[in-house]
């Protein structure tokens, strides 16, 4: 902190802000007391965490080591990493979910680079989930694996990816219908959007899994299909409103210029309005994506072994691995947090990157 004391000529605004913040925190006796108490609580929390995660944690050995330490049980994570990441997928075929994970991660990373935004990338969002489904099910090579045995992080990502990609397909026409001149169409779109948005995701999952199949007795509906149907509709109802807002914000002159050039309704949408509208709502899209990812563990209630269920499954060996419960959930939380943190930083970067020159 010598820079602060000696005064760094290069960073006066930062120093000034810090000085003002400190002044604010101690601006009155009451504020000073609150500041001290809060600082104490934060320090205590950090200390407790430090002890749990490092000082009192078991770092090597096996279950006995964890019994001997009161903190985190890291050997458990090493021993159960496979179960936590891949769920109950057959042991001898783990290359399939591993390859799936790599494919999906690759697509997501590619999607984050504006230079790659093109039709082929959109096709990638169809091709990769399809390939992963074929891979996991064993439809192409090797023994079949039922969707009930799919699990872990690949499943969570796959569920999320299909829900999001599918939602775009459903939400775009919904948003257009909602803005349509045709009253009946508009009313129908509003009804669908408001109905689905008025329902918690849990209810959507239950309805899709248990109520809908009742209307067709004898037909066995695949668990995966039930989950995706519910999620796609659910996400689409929110997405449609985001897309509509993006379209609404465009100046009228854009549609008029396109019309004057002889572009029809669909071409105008495809080439002029939607590309601009979607760019304008990227932060909202990323937010929705994070929200959906954080909601995916709900699919466990209708029997899917997603990433969090796999972790829970692993953490149920508390009597063998003392301390593993907390450790396992800490790891799961960290995984979700990391993904969302990166996503939100990315969203902010992207917003600035696009704003800077008015296009991507």
């Amino acid at each position: 902190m010598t820079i602060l004391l000696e005064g760094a000529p290069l960073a006066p605004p930062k120093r000034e802000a810090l000085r003002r913040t400190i002044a604010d925190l101690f601006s009155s006796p009451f504020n000073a007391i609150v500041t001290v108490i809060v600082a104490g609580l934060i320090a205590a929390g950090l200390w407790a965490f430090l002890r749990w995660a490092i000082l009192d944690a078991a770092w090597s050995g096996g279950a006995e080591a964890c019994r001997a330490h009161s903190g985190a049980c890291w050997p458990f994570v090493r021993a159960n990493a496979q179960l936590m990441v891949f769920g109950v997928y057959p042991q001898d075929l783990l290359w399939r979910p591993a390859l799936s994970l790599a494919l999906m991660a690759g697509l997501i990373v590619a999607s984050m680079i504006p230079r790659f935004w093109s039709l082929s990338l959109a096709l990638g969002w169809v091709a990769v989930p399809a390939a992963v489904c074929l891979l996991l099910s064993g439809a192409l090579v090797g023994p079949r694996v039922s969707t009930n045995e799919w699990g872990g992080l690949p499943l969570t990502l796959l569920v999320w990816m299909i829900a999001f990609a599918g939602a775009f397909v459903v939400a775009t026409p919904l948003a257009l219908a909602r803005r349509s001149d045709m009253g009946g169409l508009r009313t129908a779109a509003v009804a669908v959007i408001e109905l689905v948005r008025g329902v918690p995701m849990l209810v959507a999952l239950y309805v899709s899994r248990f109520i809908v199949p009742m209307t067709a007795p004898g037909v066995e509906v695949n668990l995966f299909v039930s989950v995706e149907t519910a999620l796609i509709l659910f996400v689409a109802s929110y997405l449609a409103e985001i897309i509509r807002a993006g379209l609404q914000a465009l100046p009228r002159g854009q549609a008029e210029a396109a019309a004057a050039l002889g572009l029809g309704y669909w071409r105008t949408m495809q080439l002029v309005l939607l590309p601009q509208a979607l760019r304008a709502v990227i932060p909202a899209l990323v937010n929705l994506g994070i929200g959906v990812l954080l909601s995916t563990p709900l699919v466990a209630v209708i029997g899917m072994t997603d990433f969090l269920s796999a972790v829970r499954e692993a953490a149920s060996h508390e009597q063998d691995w003392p301390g593993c419960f907390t450790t396992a959930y800490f790891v799961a939380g960290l995984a979700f947090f990391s993904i969302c943190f990166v996503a939100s930083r990315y969203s902010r970067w992207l917003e600035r990157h696009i704003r800077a020159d008015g296009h991507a």
Partner: protein
Amino acid sequence: MPDLNARDIPRHDRPAIEFVGVHKWYGDFHVLRDIRLAVDPGERVVVCGPSGSGKSTLIRCVNRLEEHQKGAIRVHGLELTASAAQIDRVRREVGMVFQQFNLFPHLTALENCALAPVWAAGVKRREAEERAHALLAKVKIADQAHKYPSQLSGGQQQRVAIARALCMNPKIMLFDEPTSALDPEMVKEVLDTMTALAGEGMTMIVVTHEMGFARRVADKVVFMDDGEVVETGEPEEFFTAPRHDRARQFLGQLLR
């Protein structure tokens, strides 16, 4: 500089644009009242009048950005009706340039120009881009072809907008106050582009208050007030001796 007064442009008996007793309402508001107007092929018409008099509405009816409720509008004999196919045919003949440019901000100048030829007229991409390059060169911004609108000045954007409209090979061009949103030093470059276009025999309707341009280029000046065409005449005659009080008043304000 071509001689703009040379009357060697072929005339047909059929007007390029024809308004026959056209009325339009916005709800209760009577915005166009009994418009009768004919524009010959190759003719350059300047429309002027006070703000809110219906000038924009008038030219926006020509390519059906606005719908009229009574009377008939014909473009090269094609009547504008609710028929989408008919509207399409008319729009293929008519290019439009807007006050706010309305370029597509997510596309480069070149892409702005090539978009409609490829997707609305079915021209091959290579060919469309060649033509776009040629027209950008014609409006003297060939070197800016790969820039986005936000990287161009107002005058450059408006010239791209003109090139974009020309890429569809229109026979008629409509201009709605093309220089009103420009900084003064950029007005000239846009007016020069339009003057050159007029020299090639393009049929033009230009809503503008640029009286110098009107005097140099227009064959006919149409003065509108309160939704009506109050006076039509040759530019020299209109500017030196307007027949109607309202026109005199308007010109008085303009010159002051």
